[in-house]
Every structure is written in C-alpha cells, then in structure tokens.
C-alpha cells in the first residue's frame, strides 16, 4: 500500500489513462497507416510508385483520376458554401418565414447516404447509354444528354446535395455568433444593408466559410458511392474508385499507393484551408451583452427567396426518398408510377421476372446483412463512444505534455482520411496474420475495428463537449471522497453526460450503417452489409432492389436520427429570434 502510494506520488496523475488511450489509438489509427506506407516502400514493391506516378499507365491510373477528384472537390466545396451559406443567411439573419422548417430540413441531407441520392438521381436522369432501361425523363420522351445522366455533372450535383448540409451547419453556427452589436454598430454609421453584409458580416464569418468549404472538399474527394454509381459506368474515375478497382483486381500495391496519394491530396487541401484560417486574426467576438440581432427585412424578395429555400430543401431531402420509394415498386424506372408491384420487396424468385431475383426480404443474404449491419452499428457506436469518453477525460482532466497532443491528433486524424483509403490501410495491416494472431480479413471484427477507428473523431468530439460541460469541481468533489477513476466515471461523469452520450451513440450508429466507402473494400460474402448489398445490386443493374435496400437503411437511420434529435433537444441556437 505504501509502495503503491509512493509510486503514485512520483508519477503524474492520469499517466496510465493517457498511455492507455495512446496505445489504443496507435493500434486503431497509427498502425494501419504506417503499415500501408511501409508496404509500398518495401524494396520488392516500391515499383508501384513509379507505375502509378511515372509510367505509360500513370495517366489513366493516377493523373486523370486525380484531376477528376480535384475538380469534384473544388466544385462541391464551392457549391456547398454557396448553397449552405445562402440558406444559413436566410435562416439566421433574415425575416424569412418558415425559418425553423428550413433550418431543420437543411441539416437532413447529411443523414441521407450519398448512394441514396445517387440512386435517386439515376431513377430520373438515367439514359440508355450503358444498357438497362432509362429513367423517368426518358420514359416521358425527353432525351437526357449523357452529361446529365452520367459522369462529372451528376456526381457533383449529387455530392453538393449531400454535403451542403455540412456547409449550412458550420456557417449557420458562425452567423449565429455574429454579435448583434457588430451589425448595429455598422448600422449606426448609416451603412446600407448591402454594405453591412459585405463589409462586416461576410468578413467576420469568412473563417467559417473556409472551414465549411474544406470539410465539404474533404468529403467530396473521399466519397466513393456517387462517383462509383454515376461515374464508373462511363469510365469516369476518381482516386477513390480507382483505388477500389486496383484492390479488387488484386493490384494491391498500386491500390495502396493511390490510397496514400488520396490521403495526401485531401491533407494538402485541408492544410491549405487551415493556413488561410491561421493567417487571419482570431475573430472570436469580444464578449458582453449579446444583444438581439436584428433581422434583415427581405421586402419584396421575401416570397421568391422563401420558395427557393424550400425548393432546395425539398429537392434534397424528401424528393429523393419519394423517388426511391416509387422506384422500388415500379418494374420500369421509365414509367415510375405504373405497374407497381411488391415483387422487389417480398416476391418469390421467378425466372420470368427480374432475371429470377427474389424480393429482398426473400433473399437470405439481405436478412443476414440486416442483422449484421445493425449489430456492427451497435457494437461500433458503443466502442467508439467508450473510447471517446476515455480520450475526452484524458484530454480535459489530465493533460500531459507531449502525450496529450499525440492523443488529440491521433483521435482527430481519421476525420482527414478518406474512408476507402482507411479501408485499404486496414487490409494492409490486419488482412494478414500478425504473429500468432489470425488474419482478420473476411471477419466482422475487421469491419468493426475499421469503423470504430473511423468514428473516433465524432465520438471524441461529442465526448469532449459533454465532459467539458461537467465542471472539474464536480469530479474533484467526488475524488475527495476517495472514489477511484472508474467509479467516478460510472457514478458522476456518465450519468451527467448520458443525454449527450446517447445522442452521440445514435449518430455514430447512423453513420456506420450508411457508410459505404470504408466497408466496400473490407466486406466479403461472409460478412454482407446493407450498404454494400445495395451497391452490388445497383452495379449489377438491379436498381429496384438497390433502391429497396437503401430504403431499409434509410428507415433504420431515420428512426435512430429522430431519436437522437429528440434526446438532443433543440440545440440550434441560430433559430432563436
């Protein structure tokens, strides 16, 4: 007892906890990345670098996909900042009616997996170019040009429709902090509304615009589903689809090199955004009595702008879902509203129909995928949040020089890593046996590990927010009673943080079950997941089945997300008048 007490006195408090979470993060995040890098630097395989970067193949292998990826990223970032910023301005700063509704709808698209939006796009705009039936427009006798049916344009539009919600959230939060006084001080000078907007409001929220833009950029360049569904049929490759293709055809080293390059590209742009942010002075507004922000009167533009905002919201949230529902019932997408049948949902296999495919609920794979997806979602949400709380406690209560920085960086890193590259890194490390441990490839453990690591940034972020809400004094008061670390976590921190934690669990769950990019490389027929199943159906041309499976995912995630929203309460400060 005395020896232990003596040892404790010499070691800094929380050292064990810090080292523990550091080791966990090293295994989950650092090790796979190191492995993928080391494997491509292996003397026998180092040739993959020159294959990719400087060989007759490299134009198609890397440069064209990289160019497409960049174009996609920049276009999506610009579009998201524009649309998200426009909606945020309307909701936060103006007297537009239905602000609450628009503010709610504008956060939803991010909850809808991008493959759902991509599939919905296909049901309307698909043309006969790559075989299979056309979409709704062709059925109505309108010829859809290839540029609108396939490739860059539809991919970009679908991704903007998905990611603008991110831009909206970031920008709306920033606009809400623009002190009402700042605007009033400008009004006192007699400046016009336009001048106040461009001279004061925009520059103050510029950091948020840049941050929102770079998040959308990172999301777009790492997205797999949209370019795979809308670009691949016409051979438009992005780095993520190329990387997927390489690994699928067994050219693993080239795939790994592409993964590293994709990580690099995304990192360079995020760093650039950070540079821009760091170059500016901190705009944290000086505290004081907040002051009610006066809303800009829209005047005559009120009607049209409201209509436009509602239109954007409906087209990106409810419309795709309705289209998917119709398309999962109609035998032909070209006549979306006739001949509806439940065959694609519950039909028996019938050689005369849908090439003998049974309805999804008669497909044993689907039922297995359903249970596995939900199970993995639950396990991952739990694991990620447990680690998230531990990391949060270590970071907020027991900061240690050196270690804490590493913990913080490592737990945030997966945020910057494109999901598909992350998947590749997990294959590289855990795909082969390590010492006495068996290879994990083809097991659900590998899926769970990779997804847990990918969810860490969210879990840590919410964990830190919840732990930070609980004042250190509360924990210290418990410490004075002699309660140990885990006792305090269980009796003090967890009960106090339970609401936020439960919401975080549910959101993690939603992210996991609608993820495609990470799992598309890791899945095997023995570990089917709903999102992969939907993707497989779609790439094999069974669109109705793909739509039906996507709807199953959507209904589960809507339930969970709705529950999370209820638990969170109305945590949208920009809606208060």
């Amino acid at each position, binding site marked *: 007892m005395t020896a232990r007490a003596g040892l404790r006195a010499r070691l800094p408090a929380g050292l064990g906890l810090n080292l523990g979470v550091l080791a966990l993060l090293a295994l989950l995040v650092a090790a796979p990345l190191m492995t993928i890098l080391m494997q491509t630097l292996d003397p026998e395989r180092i040739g993959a670098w020159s294959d990719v970067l400087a060989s007759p193949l490299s134009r198609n292998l890397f440069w064209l996909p990289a160019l497409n990826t960049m174009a996609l990223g920049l276009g999506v970032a610009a579009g998201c900042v524009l649309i998200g910023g426009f909606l945020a301005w309307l909701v936060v700063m103006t007297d537009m009616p239905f602000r609450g509704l628009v503010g709610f709808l504008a956060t939803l698209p991010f909850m809808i997996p991008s493959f759902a939006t991509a599939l919905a796009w296909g049901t309307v705009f698909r043309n006969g170019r790559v075989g299979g039936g056309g979409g709704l427009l062709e059925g109505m006798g309108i010829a859809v040009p290839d540029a609108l049916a396939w490739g860059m344009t539809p991919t970009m539009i679908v991704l903007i429709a998905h990611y603008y919600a991110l831009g909206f959230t970031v920008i709306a939060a920033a606009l809400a902090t623009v002190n009402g006084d700042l605007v009033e001080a400008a*009004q006192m000078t*007699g400046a016009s509304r336009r001048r106040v907007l461009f001279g004061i409001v925009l520059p103050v929220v510029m950091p948020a615009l840049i941050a929102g833009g770079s998040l959308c950029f990172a999301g777009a360049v790492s997205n797999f589903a949209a370019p795979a569904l809308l670009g691949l049929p016409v051979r438009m490759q992005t780095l993520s689809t190329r990387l997927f293709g390489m690994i699928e055809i067994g050219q693993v080293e080239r795939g790994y090199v592409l993964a590293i390059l994709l990580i690099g590209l995304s990192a360079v742009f995020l760093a650039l955004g950070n540079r821009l942010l760091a170059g500016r002075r901190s705009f944290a507004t*000086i505290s004081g009595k907040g002051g009610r922000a006066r809303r800009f009167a829209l005047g005559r533009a009120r009607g049209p702008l409201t209509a436009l905002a509602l239109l954007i919201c409906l087209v990106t949230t409810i419309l795709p879902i309705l289209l998917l529902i119709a398309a999962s019932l109609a035998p032909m997408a070209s006549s979306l509203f006739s001949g509806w049948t439940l065959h694609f949902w519950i039909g028996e296999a019938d050689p005369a129909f849908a090439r003998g495919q049974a309805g999804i609920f008669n497909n044993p794979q689907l039922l297995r995928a359903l249970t596995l997806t939900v199970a993995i979602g639950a396990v991952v949400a739990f694991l990620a949040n447990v680690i998230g709380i531990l990391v949060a406690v270590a970071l907020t209560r027991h900061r240690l020089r050196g270690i804490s920085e590493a913990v913080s960086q490592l737990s945030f890193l997966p945020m910057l890593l494109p999901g598909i590259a992350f998947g590749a890194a997990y294959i590289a490390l855990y795909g082969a046996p390590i010492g006495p441990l068996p290879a994990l490839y083809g097991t659900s453990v590998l899926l769970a590990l990779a997804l847990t690591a990918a969810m860490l940034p969210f879990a840590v972020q919410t964990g830190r927010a919840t732990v930070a809400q609980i004042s250190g004094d509360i924990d210290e008061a418990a410490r004075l009673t002699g309660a140990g670390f885990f006792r305090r976590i269980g009796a003090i921190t967890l009960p106090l943080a339970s609401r936020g934690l439960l919401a975080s669990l549910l959101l993690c769950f939603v992210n996991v079950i609608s993820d495609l990019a990470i799992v598309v490389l890791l899945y095997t027929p023995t570990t089917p997941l709903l999102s992969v199943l939907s993707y497989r159906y779609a790439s094999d041309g069974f669109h109705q089945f793909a739509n039906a499976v996507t709807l199953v995912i959507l209904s589960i995630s809507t339930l969970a997300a709705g529950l999370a929203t209820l638990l969170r309460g109305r945590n949208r400060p920009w809606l208060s008048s």
Partner: protein
Amino acid sequence: MITLSHLGKTFGGAQAVSDISLTVPEGAFLVLLGPSGCGKTTILRMLAGLEHPTAGEIRFGDTAVADASRGYVMEPGSRNAGLVFQSYALWPHMTVAGNVDWPLRVANLGREERRARAAEAMEMLGVAGLAARYPGEISGGQQQRVAIARMIAPRPRVLLFDEPLSNLDATLRVEMRTELMRVHRATGATAVYVTHDQIEAMTMATHVAVMNGGRIEQFDPPERLLSDPASAFVARFIGTPPANLIPVQAGAWFGRMPDPALRGATGHGMVRAEDLALADAPGPDTFAAQPVEVVPMAGRRLVTGLAEGQRVTAVTDLAGPVPSELHFRLPPAPAAIFDPKGNRLS
C-alpha cells in the same frame, strides 16, 4: 438639445418604457441611471434609432428623429449620433485604424479628410500607436478607447454610451470616467450615458434621470438627487453610503420613539449617514444595534449596525475597537419623510 416627449415602448405587450418626458440642453451630459431592467437601455436604443418607439416623440434640436404618432423613424445612420456598445462591438476583422476609418468611408469622406479625422480621434484617445493591431490583440481598456475613437471620428452631435465601463476593472473605470468627460468637453456634443452605477452618474452627469420600472423617478442635476430625493427609491439608490431609511410608525421611530419632527407620519424617515452619530451610552434619542461591519473611508469610519432587522450606517470618528453593542443617536429631524409607497411627504 435632446427632447423626449411622452416616450413609450412596448415589447409584445410588455411595457418596457412609459411616458418619458425630459429635455436637456446642447452639450449636456445626461445619465440614465437605474437598476437592470428599468428601461434605460431601451431609451438609449430608441435614441440611437435601433428600436422604434411605440409612443411619443424624440427630437434632436429642432429635428424630430422619431415620432410614434406619425409612425416616423429616422434611420440610425442619418441621426448624426454615435453609440459605444457595452460589448464595444469592434469589428474583429478590421484593425484599430480600420475600425475608426470604416464609418468615415460609409460617410463618403475624402481620403485626406478620413486620414486626418481618424488620426485625430485615435490621438485623442491615445490609441494611435495601436492603429495596425486587431481588436483581439489589445486589452479590454484599449478596446474601449478604440470604440470611443470610432464613435467620435465622424463628429456626431449626440454621443450615446451603453454601460461602457461595466466590463473594465475598478482602476481603469476611474481613469476612463475622466477620459470620457474630457472627450465630451472636447467635442461639445450632447452625451447620453446609461449606467447602473450611481457613482458614475454623480461624477459625470450634468443631468440625471433616475429610472425605475420603465418610468423616471426623478430628473435633476446630481446634487439635487442627494439634497432633495423625490422618492424613497432615489434616496436608497443615491449616495456613498446611501441614506438610511428608518421605518416610522404614527410619528415614532421604529414605532416606539415618538418624535414631533416626524409629524405623525407612517413610512420611512430619511437620515443621512453623516447626520447619524454614535453615542457612548443609551439615551432618549438613541437606539441600539448589533455591529455588522466597519469600513474605513477617507480617514473616517463607516459603522453599520443591525437595528430591528434594519441596516443602519453612520459616518463616525470612532477610534479603537468596535463595542459589542452600538448606540446610534438620531438627528433633531429627518432630512425627508416618505410614505409607505415611497412617495415624498416632506
């Protein structure tokens, strides 16, 4: 000259300000003084043009800037008035010089004129050396000076201040009080200043409107508030220390010490701390109290005791230890008498 006539403001049915009428001459320093929620900031914001009155009229000189009966409101920018916010509201993305310059740009002044005026304003407030810094890089006191420089650079005729010193520490506050008075004199403009700190009001104002519950309790020069408080509220609010309001019942202090000077009144008798003395022993005009605290002040001591649940303070020359029981000696007559509702009786 600023004139308010029957000014009123309701927020969704709640009456924030009602029936405010007062006039101050050109160059005056008007302080709106009162506890939080008394409507003083609402009046200031109506003067600035950031809120619209629901009743009454505001005139700057001969110009009506707001008239609720006509539904007329002049835009904030056209009123030739400047406002210093409690939060300072410096634009965080502009340097100090940029902050001072921006209003001049909006006013479409020429480059030379702008440079000269901005430099003059920054010189006057002693922030010229900070011109290239951003608001986030300077201290609270410096931000305050920049906010004032920004306000005076366009040379407004009306200077509005919304509790500008409340975020500063005590030493800086005293320093900035002097600074503000200097700026006010130098510009010759009319100032309206909102505060809950009666010391600020007493030191800076030429006119004070003491406010309570959206109404003016008393509108007078500072000395008159002290010498002649119009209500018990004002008597309790003003003075360092504030006067004692001792309960009287049917012409007797505490209902048991009859005094013809009270003229049979019921309510409160006002006894200033300097009129109250400490007695060595009980007497016909003394009452006993438990000692509560002793504060040394300007070479004398403020002795506060608790008498029948009532705090009573006297300015004394008491030396040595405080006795375990105090005896306060009442003056021959109270300075004022208030009825139970706080209205002045005499």
